[in-house]
């Protein structure tokens, strides 16, 4: 084949948007082709006379270029290979780059010889919804059927390796955002930009200009390209105007929150080190929708053969890319716009055989254009069939009757490789509708136009149903001026003038939703509505007959408009056919819902940089790097990384935890407890506030003393716990669990601000201020005494549940004598910047005592040995203090506290509530799995009645046996009884219900 056989010379097409001097080589289905800079994959393939590009979804019928941009339903290709591969790109939107590799999708072994075509042969058996009616017998075969169906479906192939590209996000604010860089959008941008407003104008194509790029009309008496260049130059010079080509406005969300997707390197091919795509999140004062209109097809027999193409697309290939979509053409239209196409094609040397017009009376200007070029116009006529094997070779035309539902005998046959079709225009109301905008039906144009919206937005130009260039320019200018004014920007001085063009008089289109076939052939032909999903007019009518009468049922039953093009060209014809079948008007039938995105957007771009390790920020304590350097294994606790255990010399977790636990009871253990939440509570009503928040009483806590508290949510369930200390008169320091630090702070503020604004209390989070280092064990006091000279750390000087201020290892410190291990234990709080220094000082000075850092796992074991609960482990939002056997902490005297009333409800008084107990397995070395369910009768039939589950379970090195905490129905009164735990591996373990305190039940070690 000759290179670019269908590329039109400059003699035929002047000024196309390609650089003929720059060749680009690419591969399609294994063959190398040449294109030019400025080409899309589609235009280059058209120029190379490649017609068969894809196969349809269901019947695997051959598909060629139908559109020239976002609207094309057919030409999906797989671009790139390996990790870089991209499925389902629309060839009309792929910019050519050197070395581009593209292949057809959904065809095997090749797009030319696809075995899937058997579906087409069986298509009689596969009408809309056939799968609901069959594949049910035998029931067990469905899996097999499904396997076959799944493999046949899908289009391109997902990559298998991680995406090598990156994506990022950008927030931006502007006064006026304009979607669409056609004449309407540009006029709006000029008007708004000149006021000084912050303006953004986006267009999803490679260059701005919209229809101007493919049109020969004049603007301001200049060729469109010239005007475009000057407009862009002016916009480019405006400081507050941002012009963004290759940027799709994909969604219009509430309150003018707009999503844009900018393609930054796609046109350059793989291998760039900036983000491949960028998602812009815009807050716009005013939005102008100027996204143009989408041409519709006509539903006639054989309308899916490659070679049948939207008229506007044919003109675009010719005018914009100098690519000839066919040598001989027949134009088939219901409106005047295709006459301009006919003229453009004819002027480019394409032989226009005829214009077949459904109407009796085409517009005068249109007719004139045809007759000036000696093009035959067949009025009140229609194409009743296309002929050809894989592509169109000719058409048959007949006269249409007055009703439009049949033909009049006498046919004309034309040979042609291109049928350029226009079924009228549908404004791109998509974005207008995303945020709830309504549409109105334009009876004359046969389309929906933007109606009411709550957003500060307006639609202009073709997107608003204005199809004349002159109107578009005027309206765009107006909209730009008004939108800017609505955000407070006005051009001072004389009223400026916008761009102009010559208005053209047109006649209205004629809407015939189903073009009759040749007499007698009605049942033999296929007329496609949705070219991607193979929905025909017969499918639409079948659905209606079967009772799927709502448009939404129609859509879902036939899959009309559910493909990757989202029915841009097919929705209205589908609705028209349904309306006719139901004998309703089209607006009564209504339209399906327009949803984001306008065109498909890369999932990685939506995620942006927040993937992999950057999914969420990591929170680190001041000692984090010490832990890291000392081999700690970390545990994720919320966003924190906490040392889980510190394996040494090849220890496994079990060995490390045992060593750490022993050290904490026999020497000194040191824990990084920085993650605890800390809240500074001040004010004359602080103790009253605590009384309301906690279940126990707070009025009498002396300065220097600490108290454990339990917080309930208003439904009576345990929400959080922690120690609160009295710092000075009317000032407390509350600690919370690590996981609840933020939510408790929010909880306190909520009550203060919304319910008790009269309370004089201030809360401030100081979680981040303090590094918390806990030392625990028989030598903890000795160590502390060594490093701290200004606090008497003796049992009397610093009794259990008290705190003092002083210095430890030179750092200003608050030392709390509290214990989560049951040993003598000090929580040393120092300003975070001192955390690491103090940690190192303690490690150095503690070496002689055998100081051992321990992680969260050992902490869990140590506290379980003492029967201390962990909120979120022993509790799950369904446990009351009573269930936890913590009656002692619920004040009987206080008239009220949060959650108190709920505790009195019927269900809380049951004595078979699940209650917290200890468990001893019969075999002391058997460690129960956490979460294991507990039963009374392990031989009971399934479903087996369950009475509780294990909440915590460990092998205690200190006790030399396993211990567990569990909740058991009525457990508090069942101590000594045996229960059973049927495990996943089929074994059943026996265990005795015990108290919760396994170690040092008298609490003697607390005081050392």
């Amino acid at each position, binding site marked *: 084949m000759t290179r670019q056989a269908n590329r039109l010379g400059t003699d035929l097409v002047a000024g196309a948007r390609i650089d003929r001097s720059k060749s680009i080589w690419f591969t399609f289905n294994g063959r190398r082709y040449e294109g030019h800079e400025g080409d899309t994959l589609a235009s280059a393939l058209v120029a190379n006379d490649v017609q068969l590009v894809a196969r349809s979804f269901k019947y695997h019928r051959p598909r060629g270029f139908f559109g020239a941009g976002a609207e094309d339903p057919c030409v999906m290709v797989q671009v790139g290979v390996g990790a870089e591969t991209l499925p389902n790109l629309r060839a009309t939107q792929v910019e050519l780059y050197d070395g581009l590799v593209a292949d057809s999708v959904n065809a095997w072994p090749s797009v030319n010889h696809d075995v899937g075509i058997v579906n087409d042969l069986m298509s009689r058996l596969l009408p809309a919804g056939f799968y609901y009616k069959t594949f049910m017998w035998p029931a067990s075969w469905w899996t097999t059927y499904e396997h076959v169906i799944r493999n046949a479906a899908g289009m391109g192939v997902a990559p298998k390796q991680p995406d090598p590209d990156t994506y*990022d*996000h*950008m*927030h*931006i*604010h502007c006064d006026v955002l304009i979607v669409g860089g056609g004449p309407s959008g540009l006029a709006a941008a000029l008007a708004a930009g000149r006021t000084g407003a*912050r303006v953004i104008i986006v267009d999803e194509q490679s260059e701005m200009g919209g229809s101007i790029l493919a049109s020969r009309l004049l603007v301001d008496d200049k060729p469109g390209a010239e005007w475009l260049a000057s407009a862009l130059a002016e916009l480019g010079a405006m400081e507050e105007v941002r012009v963004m080509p290759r940027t799709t406005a994909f969604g219009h969300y509430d309150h003018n929150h707009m999503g844009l997707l900018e393609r930054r390197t796609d046109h350059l091919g793989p291998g760039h080190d*900036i*983000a491949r795509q960028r998602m812009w*999140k815009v*807050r716009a004062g005013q939005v102008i929708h100027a996204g143009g209109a989408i041409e519709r097809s006509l539903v006639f027999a054989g309308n899916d053969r490659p070679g049948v193409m939207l008229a506007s697309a044919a003109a675009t290939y010719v005018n914009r890319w100098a690519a000839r979509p066919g040598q001989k053409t027949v134009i088939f239209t219901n409106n005047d716009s295709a006459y301009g196409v006919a003229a453009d094609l004819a002027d480019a040397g394409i032989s226009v055989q005829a214009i077949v017009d459904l109407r009796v009376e085409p517009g005068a200007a249109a007719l004139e254009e045809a007759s000036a070029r000696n093009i035959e116009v067949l009025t009140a006529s229609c194409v009743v069939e296309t002929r050809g094997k894989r592509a169109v070779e000719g058409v048959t035309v007949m006269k249409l009757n007055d009703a439009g539902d049949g033909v009049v005998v006498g046919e004309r046959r034309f040979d042609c490789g291109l049928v350029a079709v226009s079924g009228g225009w549908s404004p791109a109301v998509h974005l207008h509708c995303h945020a709830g905008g309504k549409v109105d039906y334009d009876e004359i144009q046969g389309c929906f136009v933007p109606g009411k919206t709550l957003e500060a937005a307006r639609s202009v130009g073709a997107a608003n149903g204005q199809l004349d260039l002159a109107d578009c320019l005027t309206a765009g200018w107006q909209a730009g001026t008004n939108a800017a004014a609505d955000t407070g920007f006005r051009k001072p001085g004389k009223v400026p003038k916008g761009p102009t063009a010559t208005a053209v008089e047109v006649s209205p289109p004629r809407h015939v939703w189903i073009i009759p076939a040749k007499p007698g052939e009605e049942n033999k032909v296929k007329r496609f509505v949705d070219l991607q999903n193979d929905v025909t007019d017969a499918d639409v009518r079948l659905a209606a007959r079967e009772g799927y009468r709502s448009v939404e049922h129609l859509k879902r039953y036939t899959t009309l408009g559910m493909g990757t093009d989202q029915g841009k060209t097919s929705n209205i014809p589908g609705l028209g056919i349904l309306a006719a079948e139901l004998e309703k008007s089209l607006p009564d039938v209504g339209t399906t819902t327009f949803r984001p995105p306008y065109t498909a957007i890369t999932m990685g771009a939506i995620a942006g*940089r*927040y993937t992999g390790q*950057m999914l*969420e*920020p*990591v*929170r*680190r*304590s*001041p000692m984090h*790097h010490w832990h890291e350097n000392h081999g700690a294994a970390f545990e994720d606790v919320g966003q*924190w990384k906490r040392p889980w255990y510190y394996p040494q010399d090849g220890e496994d977790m079990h060995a490390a935890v045992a060593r750490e636990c022993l050290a904490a009871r026999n020497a000194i253990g040191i824990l990084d407890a*920085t993650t605890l939440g800390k809240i*500074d509570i*001040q*004010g*004359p009503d602080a103790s009253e506030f605590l009384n309301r928040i906690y279940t126990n009483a707070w009025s009498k806590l002396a300065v220097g003393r600490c108290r454990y508290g339990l917080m309930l949510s208003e439904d009576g369930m345990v929400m959080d716990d922690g120690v609160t200390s009295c710092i000075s008169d009317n000032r407390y320091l509350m600690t919370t669990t690590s996981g609840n630090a933020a939510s408790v702070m929010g909880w306190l503020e909520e009550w203060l601000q919304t319910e008790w604004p009269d309370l*004089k209390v*201030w809360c*401030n*989070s*100081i*979680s*981040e*201020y*303090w590094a918390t280092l806990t030392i625990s064990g028989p030598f903890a006091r000795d160590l502390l005494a060594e*490093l701290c000279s200004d606090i008497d750390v003796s049992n009397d000087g610093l009794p259990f549940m008290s705190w003092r201020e002083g*210095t430890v*290892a*030179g*750092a200003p410190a608050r030392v709390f004598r509290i214990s989560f291990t049951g040993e003598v234990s000090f929580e040393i709080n120092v*300003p*975070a*910047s*001192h*955390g*690491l*220094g*103090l940690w*190192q*000082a303690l490690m150095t000075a503690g070496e002689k005592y055998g100081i051992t850092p321990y992680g969260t796992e050992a902490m869990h074991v140590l506290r379980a040995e003492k029967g201390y609960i962990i909120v979120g482990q022993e509790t799950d939002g369904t446990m009351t203090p009573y269930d936890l056997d913590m009656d002692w902490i619920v004040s009987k005297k206080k008239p009220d506290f949060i959650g108190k009333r709920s505790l009195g409800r019927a269900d809380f008084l049951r004595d078979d509530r699940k209650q917290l107990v200890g468990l001893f397995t019969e075999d002391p070395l058997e460690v129960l799995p956490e979460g294991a369910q507990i039963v009374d009768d392990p031989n009971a039939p399934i479903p087996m009645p369950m009475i509780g589950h294990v909440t915590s379970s460990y092998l205690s090195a200190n006790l030399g046996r396993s211990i567990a905490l569990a909740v058991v129905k009525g457990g508090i009164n069942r101590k000594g009884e045996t229960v059973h735990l049927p495990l996943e591996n089929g074994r059943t373990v026996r265990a005795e219900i015990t108290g919760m305190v396994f170690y040092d039940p008298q609490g003697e070690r607390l005081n050392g």
Partner: protein
Amino acid sequence: MADSYLRQSALASLHLIARANQADSNAGLSMGERGFLCQWVVRGDAGNAVFASAVKDVTGCDLPIEPNTVQGSGYINVLWLGPDEWLIVAPDGSDAGPRLDEACKDIHAAVTDVSESRTVIVLAGEHARDVLAKGCALDFHARSFVVDQCAQSTLAHMHVIVHQRSDAPEFDVYVHRSFAESLWQWLEDAAAEYGFAVSNPV
């Protein structure tokens, strides 16, 4: 023992000061840590004359009542955080907090030391706004975010206070200490395409 410990700024482990010496002068922006600032959160009633004048006396700044604004004395800055909440920022060693606490002891106000809670990352230069815009929904355009304006928001999903210091532009970004390394990492990544230099702000 007193001299054996080392105070560590939140980003100490990144050795920014060492990196600052190898700064690239063509960079689109500079980033550095301003550590060890004294910071106090002050809560109180702006309408209370005692309170307002205590703040003025101690800091030399008028209590900023205008939302999202900063009052500065050159030495101390007072940032508006909310209708009854301010952040006083002073260089290391300042005793403004305790003095204010003392001055407010008879009224319902609270002064809480949060010096260690946050560190400040300074972003400056031509592309500072772009980097912020990558992760923060505030409008940093020069028309709507001006010198001595501040705001609390999120940057890359981390809570921050942003204070524009100069027209350079230069921004102080206050971030919680535990998040500081993550934010720095994110900023480095965001800034990479513009080129950045590590600075050593004082």
